[in-house]
């Protein structure tokens, strides 16, 4: 059977085998590489199901892909085969305010959903830095989250039902529009975070929440990142839950200022951005409480209340990771070891150890991240034309991953495992990894769905 002809029968000219096109699908935003044999852009559940069944019958790997902004190589077809580019299935099918939920296709862009919800006074809270370009399918498959995770949780907390195409092409629903259910295993939660290894998501019902009346931003700077970490721990233990709690070390601050010179940010120290939301009075009260907690520790503090000022800071913060070369055009940020997380109490220790690792390998480092949930983004930057720097970078990243596990944490808090962090799964999970492997074997006996990922 000629596979090209068979695929063409299903999707027509939405199949490409052009070498240039295939090359564009051989990577995502990580360093993982793998060349597909076919790229398909399906338009419907039925098309996805037919393609997957064809792949199943012919034992061809199938890798789903959203926007390819993933940082773990999840969307990279390391075993070749078919890439299903889901970004064209991008319709918002239903905005159901009465049931406070939406039904979307997986290719809908996070920001596009929130733009559509804004006039209704609602939003979908998980907002990764990549919200302008990443898809909801990618977010579900990675259990992505973002700056507001500390209060609002991760993607996992917002999915009610998924339509999933299984390895043999069968289409199932994992949930319903119900708020709760006590019937059977929670397959929705199983699919979330499964990185396209158990099924292809073709529709999702998502819970939405009312937009807060107001937001305020406390900007506090500290002598070093460790003290900043202590301020965060103290804020939480005082019973305040900010809607976002981000750390920016001094290098990140410099990068941000290059990116947008008009930003109003402190000129010294390591900074924590504490965002609070709610009604005018509850937000004010929370902001004041945070400032009180920080007084003995902070070098300086200020409060941003204007929407524009806050929006500008968040917009720049979202892309700071990719903006390192603004500081030194010969350096690029390479996403490795960039997503570790530890229990909040261990944050100061993690910050210290990570700095030591960067110094040991003589690599410039920038530290930022969702410190409120124990998630640190370490940005190591190198001259990509220098082989020695690549070697040092990879060694440093390895040590960072092992340090996180040692501190009782995770190698990935939100970016996923993919192929980039697969080798750490055994160390992090021990015998639990065997359970995951058993699940995978049951649902995908031929191993066609996104092989080479998750250390399975």
């Amino acid at each position, binding site marked *: 059977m000629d596979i090209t002809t068979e695929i063409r029968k299903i999707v027509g000219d939405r199949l*490409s085998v*052009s*070498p*240039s*096109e295939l*090359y*564009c*699908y051989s*990577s*995502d*935003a990580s360093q993982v590489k793998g060349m597909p044999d076919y*790229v398909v*852009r399906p338009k419907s559940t039925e098309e996805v199901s037919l393609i997957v069944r064809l792949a199943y019958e012919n034992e061809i790997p199938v890798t789903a892909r959203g*926007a*390819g*902004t993933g940082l773990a190589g999840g969307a990279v077809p390391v075993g070749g085969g078919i890439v299903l*580019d889901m*970004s*064209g299935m991008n319709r918002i099918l239903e905005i159901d305010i009465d049931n406070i939920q939406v039904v979307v296709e997986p290719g809908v*862009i996070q*920001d596009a959903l929130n733009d559509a919800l804004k006039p209704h006074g609602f939003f979908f809270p998980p907002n990764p830095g*990549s919200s*302008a*370009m*990443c898809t909801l399918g990618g977010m579900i498959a990675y259990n992505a989250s973002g700056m507001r995770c500390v209060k609002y949780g991760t993607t996992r907390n917002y999915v009610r039902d998924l339509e999933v195409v299984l390895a043999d092409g069968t289409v199932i629903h994992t949930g319903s529009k119900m708020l709760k259910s006590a019937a059977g295993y929670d397959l929705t939660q199983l699919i979330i975070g499964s990185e396209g290894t158990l099924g292809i998501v073709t529709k999702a019902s998502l819970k939405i929440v009312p937009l807060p009346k107001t937001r305020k931003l406390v900007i506090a700077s500290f002598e070093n990142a460790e003290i900043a970490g202590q301020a965060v721990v103290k804020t939480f233990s005082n019973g305040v839950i900010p809607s976002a709690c981000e750390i920016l070390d001094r290098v990140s601050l410099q990068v941000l200022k290059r*990116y947008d010179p008009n930003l109003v940010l402190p000129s010294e120290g390591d900074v924590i951005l504490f965002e609070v939301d709610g009604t005018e009075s509850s937000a004010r009260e929370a902001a004041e409480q945070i400032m009180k907690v920080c007084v003995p520790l902070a070098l300086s503090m200020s409060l941003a209340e204007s929407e524009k000022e806050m929006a500008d800071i968040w917009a720049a913060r979202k*892309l*700071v*990771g*990719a*903006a*390192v*070369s*603004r500081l030194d*055009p*010969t350096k*690029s*940020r*390479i*996403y490795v070891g960039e997503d570790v997380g530890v229990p909040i109490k261990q944050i100061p220790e993690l910050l210290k150890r990570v700095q030591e690792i960067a110094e040991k390998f003589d690599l410039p480092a920038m530290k930022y991240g969702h410190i409120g949930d124990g998630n640190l983004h370490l940005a190591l930057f190198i*001259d*990509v*034309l*220098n*082989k020695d720097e690549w070697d040092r970078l990879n060694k440093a990243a390895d040590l960072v991953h092992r340090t996180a596990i040692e501190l009782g944490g995770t190698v990935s808090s939100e970016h996923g495992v993919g192929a980039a962090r697969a080798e750490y799964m055994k160390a992090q999970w021990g015998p639990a990894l065997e359970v995951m492997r058993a699940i995978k074997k049951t649902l995908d006996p031929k191993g066609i769905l996104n092989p080479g990922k998750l250390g399975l």
Partner: protein
Amino acid sequence: MKNEERKNENETGEKNSKELPFEIDRRSVYKCVQCGTCRSVCPVFDAVGWESANTRGRMLIIKSLLEGRPPSEDVLPSLASCTTCGICAAKCPAGANPPEVVEAARAQLVKCGVTTEAQENLKSAVITYGNSFGDTKSRKHWLSETERSKLPEKSEYVYFVGCFDSYRYPEFAKKTFGILQRFGVTLLPDEQCCASPLLRTGFTEDAEKVMKHNLEQIRKVGAHTIITSCAGCYTTLKNNYPEELRVISLPEFLAEHLEELNLKKLDFTVTYHDPCHLGRHNKVYNAPRKVIQAICTLMEMKNIKENARCCGGGGGVRTGYPDISLELARTRLKDVPEGVDYIVTSCPLCVRNLRDAGGDIEVIDIVELVAMAIE
């Protein structure tokens, strides 16, 4: 470059630079960290949907060529379909300049003999006839014999008409020159295409010849300032010609001379489309708005200035991929606010593309608006 850096570059790049005909500044390409931010803004990607049609795809393909993949026609749908609108560069967190990289890559592809038919046709039109349309008429056909004979031979100011106004919109040329003549502006005795189409599509060597010809003409007239009403000519004259030239766009000239123009107020509302090569590439945002507001009410489009979406006409895309080009224009028209009487822009290429997209609202060049306020 420091010795240390050069050493490193050789370590990773030597083999390729010796064996490959394809060589462009590696750093400009490796600046891209593949974050995908540009996916959210690239208008061509929006219309096409394939990864190769967005900025990151283009940067990846260029990377693959640098790393040894032989250049072939297979890369053209990606690399030839960039309008060079520059919105990706404006948004790229890593500070990459993709349209510049794409243009450099196109020049390398031309060297390797990898071009589209449309590209070749465009080149031979410019080389043979001195204009991008292959038109055989005189470039000054829109002036009468008498008018032509009266043109001052020397002047400090020259109106660079451009291929579009000369051959497609001679009425714009007439109106523009009608205004500029009052200020002692003349025309070049033998203007040729500014070379923009050649430069944007990779024919750098051929472009040199045309630019040299125009420069000689400019020197002959003794002009120190060139005024142009086309965004493509403007960016080319300003950024690709020698620096001693002072180049100003028609809207800038008009904005500087508002008082002398003595414009009357008109009772209607217009919106303004920022041409990419005037706006984003050269930051001329305020002058056209100042001129418009001196005449009538301005109501802005949904995306403006730095965020303005491309009309789809540039970078050789209109000639090479007319369907994509028109799709972009149609999308741009969706940004037009309700209740405006005209869409004003200041580039004949944008006028044509937006007109061809077939909206209900008339698209006019800024010179037509000014002419209405003078009449």
